[in-house]
């Protein structure tokens, strides 16, 4: 036998009257904190402070380990030592593993054992640890859903709702779990929009770490530009894609003290994932790019694509190499950019292009998978829609940035 909804609630009413009693409860400090972080008047300044704290901590932590420690080890000891002892200078193997024999830093050498290791361990690993430490504390304390409540009104303007902040924040760590997290959104339209927007506009932790290393003074500008792109594109997508964007009711859980055990466990899971999945990809990326250079494929492609790259985006044709590498790992691609001769503004445009341009292969696979689970028929539409949005935004926002530099007279 099955009850109707009303019968079920009547039954629950009867049961709870006989089993639950409420004692006197007075407000605690925890309740007070819970209130001030969710009411807009106090909550928004607090949210800004938290985000600023997040950013400062990220930069300080990653900078401390990368600049203060790994740069010295890799550039002053590891690289010169490898260049000295590795046999066969000028040969294929030397080129692949060590790279440029005259390079004096690990960004420019571009071998698997030099740049590959340096990017993965020296730059990205500290950035990832810093990011996840903060993220895990936000997740476990219960602050994340409060942020969702505060940002709800803004996200409604682009057809999403506050809870979409969860995939966005996760995405700043890695786009892959963020795409999976879009499952908590109600409609296919919302899931498509979110997955597409974050794959295009949100840089992952590895990219952020790399950006801080390469263009330390301009990361804020790049982030702002991407954020504007996120909202403008979201606004347009919301207008042209059919489907609903329903209102939701959100549960805001009580604050809880994060436990060291859970922080440690989640951190280890992330770091393990990075060591065993991401590092092989970085290595593979260096290998692939080096082989393509060796065969002259990249120079050939650079000549073909030069008109588009230099006329529309205003970047040197050599950025073809990094753009290819970006398909495997975007952090690696940004590292490669630093070895190409160009102006600061061209460098900023290139970094933005790498952000917007094709999602890394792991994210791409995940979008494909999520699209497929929305029903076999919608998978190609999901993917084609994503790709169309991608191409449009790359040309639009990449070209726009070039235009801004022209207007400012720095292009």
């Amino acid at each position, binding site marked *: *036998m*099955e*009850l109707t909804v009303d019968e*079920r*609630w*009547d*039954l*629950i*009413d*009867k*049961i*709870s009257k*006989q*089993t*639950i*009693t*409420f*004692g*006197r*409860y007075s407000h605690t400090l925890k309740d007070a904190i819970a209130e001030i972080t969710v009411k807009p008047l106090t909550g928004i300044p607090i949210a800004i402070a938290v985000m600023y704290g997040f950013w400062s901590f990220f930069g300080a932590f990653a900078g401390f380990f990368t600049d203060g420690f790994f740069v010295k080890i890799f550039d002053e000891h590891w690289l010169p030592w490898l260049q000295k002892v590795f046999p066969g200078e000028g040969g294929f193997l030397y080129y692949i593993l060590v790279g440029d024999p005259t390079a004096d830093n690990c960004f420019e050498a571009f071998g698997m054992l030099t740049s590959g290791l340096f990017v993965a361990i020296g730059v990205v690993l500290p950035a990832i640890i810093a990011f996840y430490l903060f993220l895990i504390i936000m*997740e*476990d*304390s*219960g602050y*994340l*859903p409060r942020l969702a409540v505060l940002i709800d009104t803004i996200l409604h303007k682009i057809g999403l709702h506050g*809870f979409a902040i*969860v995939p966005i924040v996760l995405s700043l760590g890695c786009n892959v779990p963020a795409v*999976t*997290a879009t*499952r*908590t*959104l*109600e409609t296919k339209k919302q*899931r498509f929009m979110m997955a597409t927007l974050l794959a295009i506009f949100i840089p992952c932790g590895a990219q952020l770490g790399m950006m801080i290393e390469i263009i330390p003074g301009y990361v804020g500008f790049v982030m702002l530009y991407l954020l504007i792109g996120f909202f403008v594109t979201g606004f347009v997508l919301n207008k042209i894609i059919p489907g609903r964007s329903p209102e939701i009711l*959100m*549960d805001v*859980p*009580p604050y*809880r003290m994060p*436990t060291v055990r*859970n922080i440690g*466990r*989640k951190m280890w*899971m992330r770091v393990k994932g990075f060591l065993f999945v991401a590092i092989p990809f970085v290595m593979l990326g260096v290998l692939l790019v080096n082989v393509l250079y060796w065969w002259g494929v990249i120079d050939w492609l650079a000549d073909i694509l030069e008109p588009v790259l230099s006329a529309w985006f205003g970047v040197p044709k050599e950025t073809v190499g990094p753009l290819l590498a970006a398909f495997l790992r975007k952090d690696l691609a940004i590292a490669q950019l630093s070895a190409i001769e160009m102006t600061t503004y061209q460098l900023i445009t290139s970094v933005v292009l790498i952000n917007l341009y094709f999602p890394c292969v792991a994210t791409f696979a995940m979008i494909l998978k999520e699209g497929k*689970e*929305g029903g076999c028929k919608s998978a190609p539409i999901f993917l084609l829609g994503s790709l169309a949005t991608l191409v449009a935004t790359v040309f639009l926002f990449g070209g726009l940035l070039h235009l801004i530099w022209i207007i400012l007279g720095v292009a």
Partner: protein
Amino acid sequence: MKILLMGHPNVGKSVVFNRLTGANVTESNYPGTTVDYSKGYMRLEGEDVEVIDVPGTFSLEPKDKAEEVAVKMLEKNKKSAIICVIDSVKLERGLYLALEIIEEGYPVVIALNMWDIAQDKKIRIDIDKLSSILGVPVVPTTAISGEGIKELVSTIRKAAPVEIGRILKRSGVV
């Protein structure tokens, strides 16, 4: 036999799952952490039993893709016992899903999780009475610290399907 962990979002299913199986699925303090199911094994009276951590759902009428996964898992595993995890602070809400699952004929055990918070909030629940009205085992747990998990394990075998008409009778509705 299989065991499914079901309940509303953010009631601690994944924490219970990790406690039962020694697995390492992600636990966080926001609804919607788990969006896909995970499987693990626990020892139950000398036997390896499969346990499935299911995404949170408010009812058996799914509203998003994560809830769809949950309802599908329940339908696919007709022969399993259900541990229905309920946030003790929000017992009434949690009972709705528990009743739906009982009506479908599954054997159910109820874990009243976050028991410590209910205590702090001076919410008192008569466990014995609740258990005798529903006719299913009810165990208070604080999964984060592990309290009540042992008792929960020892009651799983006692779970048996309950006729909803008897619950109506015992509660005094009819």
